[in-house]
């Protein structure tokens, strides 16, 4: 065994009924940040779940410091110094930070009686050592996403983690918060903690990673030093096809004005919003988290009432009183949080696609099921939704395919305006391109798209026009040609 590696996984196989999730995968981890890269369904999560004890491998060997080990369960993994931070945090919202950090391992005075002083002091010490400004006594629910993540990191450290696995840690963070996180990761490295880092965002891999291992369809593709590899090469290894461009933008003919907002106000979140949207264009909306981007989308869709101002659709002034009235005006909204707001996870692909259109498919309250099936069938083929059938529950679909289901559900209502809030968050590279191509197709058909995104490359790559929001106001407008990352950020941060 190679003594230089803290952890080695050899010929790991994991077979689920009917699916080979991992097929002879090798992985090794030294004193480094090791990126695990692959499309959704490539086996990244399965691999780390084997490490964290959530799954049992079917075959293969795992060595920790050169000694072969069997990881029996999550507790055992923790005892071995392996901690994992999932995308969705495992924190109890109504408990304090300290209680969360020591959950299940609380210091006691005597059996059953907590040593509160020690609890808070030790938790605070860990947080201070981490260099984060979090009070150990605050409740987790009062913290922001980035801070909650730090609580997870603190929890891992309190477990004496030597190997920290982070699953898409930056998907909900702002640029500044990502910088902070990276600083923390570099700090952890110095303290002897190795990090396995799963991400879809290629940009950040180059910033934080030392080496990268690529998986595809459950197979091991290769391990490389980050310095020795380029972005196109990585993408090719991930998807096994050359992606000419990450953003396959095609311009469409710009048509009539379809939506206009005039002096729209909403107390504390939106101020003096004025803009027009035209058929055939993608209007990108950039801005930091909390700049009012999502509130703007929700206001247009009627999910939130505006205090004053006028909205015009196809030249006519309208009053949007709720999602139903927005849908009747042919407006659709893809929320940033697909699982909580976009989909009904335990219903089928068909039911989700047809939900907003049930009205159209019914007469006197009776649904024409044939029409539903036809519609679902059509969109599954048209958008190439990968599912065993239209009766599959959407919870079993990958992120990219779930997003396609949501797009289908709006196409099914014959939308003219489609608002995408973070259209590709948590979606793998291959599916991202498919979503972009769908957008191209939509605008070519005369639909107008509003695309809210935190990812500047996406904004720059796909928009025809870009609005930048800052503190509830539109702080700037750029054409695709004149926009640059610097200009947008400058406006987003409140510069003139």
């Amino acid at each position, binding site marked *: 065994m190679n003594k230089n590696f803290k952890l080695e996984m050899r010929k790991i196989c994991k077979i689920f009924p009917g699916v080979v999730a991992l097929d002879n995968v090798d992985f090794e981890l030294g004193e480094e940040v090791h990126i695990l890269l692959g499309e959704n369904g490539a086996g990244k999560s399965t691999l780390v779940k084997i490490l964290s004890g959530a799954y049992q491998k079917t075959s293969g060997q795992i060595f920790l410091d050169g000694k072969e080990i069997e990881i029996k369960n999550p507790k055992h993994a923790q005892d071995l110094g392996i901690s994992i931070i999932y995308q969705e945090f495992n924190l109890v919202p109504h408990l304090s930070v300290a209680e969360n950090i020591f959950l299940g391992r609380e210091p006691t005075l005597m059996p059953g009686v907590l040593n509160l002083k020690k609890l808070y002091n030790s938790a605070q010490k860990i947080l201070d050592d981490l260099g984060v400004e979090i009070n150990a006594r605050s409740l987790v629910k009062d913290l922001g996403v980035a801070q909650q993540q730090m609580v997870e990191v603190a929890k891992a450290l309190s477990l004496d983690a030597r190997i920290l696995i982070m699953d898409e840690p930056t998907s909900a963070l702002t640029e500044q918060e990502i910088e902070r996180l990276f600083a923390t990761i570099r700090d952890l490295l110095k303290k002897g903690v190795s990090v396995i880092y799963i991400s879809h965002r290629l940009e950040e891999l180059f910033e934080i990673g030392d080496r990268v291992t690529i998986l595809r369809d459950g197979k091991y593709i290769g391990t490389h030093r980050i310095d020795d590899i380029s972005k196109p090469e990585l993408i090719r290894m991930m998807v096994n096809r050359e992606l000419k461009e990450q953003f396959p933008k095609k311009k469409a003919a710009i048509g009539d004005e379809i939506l206009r907002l005039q002096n729209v106000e909403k107390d504390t979140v939106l101020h003096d919003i004025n803009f027009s949207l035209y058929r055939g264009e993608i209007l990108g909306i950039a801005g930091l988290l909390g700049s009012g981007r999502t509130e703007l989308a929700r206001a247009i869709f009627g999910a939130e009432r505006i205090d004053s101002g006028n909205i015009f659709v196809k030249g006519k002034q309208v009053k949007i009183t709720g999602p139903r009235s927005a849908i009747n005006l042919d407006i659709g909204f893809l929320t940033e949080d697909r699982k909580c707001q976009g*989909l*009904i996870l*335990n219903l*089928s692909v068909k039911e989700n696609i047809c939900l907003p259109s049930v009205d159209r498919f019914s007469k006197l*309250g009776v*649904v024409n*099921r044939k029409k539903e099936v036809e519609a679902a069938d059509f969109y599954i083929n048209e958008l190439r939704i990968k599912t065993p059938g*239209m009766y599959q529950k959407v919870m079993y679909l990958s992120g990219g395919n779930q997003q396609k289901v949501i797009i289908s559900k709006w196409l099914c209502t014959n939308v003219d305006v489609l608002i995408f809030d973070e259209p590709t968050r948590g979606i793998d590279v291959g599916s991202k391109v498919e979503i972009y191509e769908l957008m191209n197709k939509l605008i070519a058909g005369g639909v107008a798209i509003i695309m809210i995104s935190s990812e500047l490359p996406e904004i720059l790559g796909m928009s025809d026009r870009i609005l930048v929001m800052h503190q509830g106001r539109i702080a700037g407008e750029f054409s695709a040609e004149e926009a640059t990352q610097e200009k947008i950020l400058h406006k987003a941060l409140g510069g003139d």
Partner: protein
Amino acid sequence: MQQKDFLIHYGRQFGTLIGLLVLSAILWILTPYFLTVSNLLNIAQQTSINAIIAVGMTFVIITAGIDLSVGSILAFSGVVLAWAIQVGIPLPLALLIGLLVGLVCGLVNGLLITFGKLPPFISTLGMMSVARGAALLFTQGRPISGFSNTFRFLANGEILYIPTPIIIMIFVYFVAHYLLTHTKLGRYTYAMGGNEEAAVLSGVNVRMFKTIVYGLCGMLSGLAAIILTARLNSAQPIAGMMYELDAIAATVIGGTSLVGGEGTIVGTLIGALIMGVLRNGLNLLGVSSFVQQTVIGSVIIFAVLIDMALKKSKK
């Protein structure tokens, strides 16, 4: 496709059905009288009231709600109905009044939940007490008894040798199944329970449809009140005690998830039949009613335990 649809929807019910058949087989071995036509009809007849209430409960539970007031609504509807008949209101109109009382109580539940934003547990707990009190007040605590044979036919009559309550029950199940699988209301019932926020953002008028669901549940309690009153030839203000728990049990045994978004009418029918068969069987075996309670409670827990284990293994 069609076949797959069937399997996904009814795979779970298949298990419950096997449970019902195994239970019946055991009882048949233990007491041959169990499997006679007259006993089976007897079971169906005794099950009908709980089965009808459980239909409303199934709708409510699929929306991720609960209705604790069905038993009290039944009592209140029953006494108003009895009063209407006795003061000489024509029977069809009196029956309608009985249903209306249930409907209105249910709608009030729905409005409190949707517009008042009360948790269903609280608003229906309140209604449970209010409707019970109203029934007692209305009758001064005394039962109203003695009805015409025409009215009593609704419980004791037979059409083609089949007792009327069974026919009513079958009718209710057909309509409810159709509502849940073929109508907008049904689609939205699942959607509201599966993810209310996503349903709102898909343009579903959640307030209206939820209110309708609670109204429906109340109205079915009113229907159950008609059958019960006709059967007992008496409307009791204290009727229907604990009926909510039987209805919830039938629904849950039938595979409807208390978290919402999942459940079928067929499942609930099987669930109600399991409860009925069990009661009947224990009676035939001469098991004391104290033991019966314990056995039935254990069966509920056991059924849900198995269900959860099966769901876990599917993952």
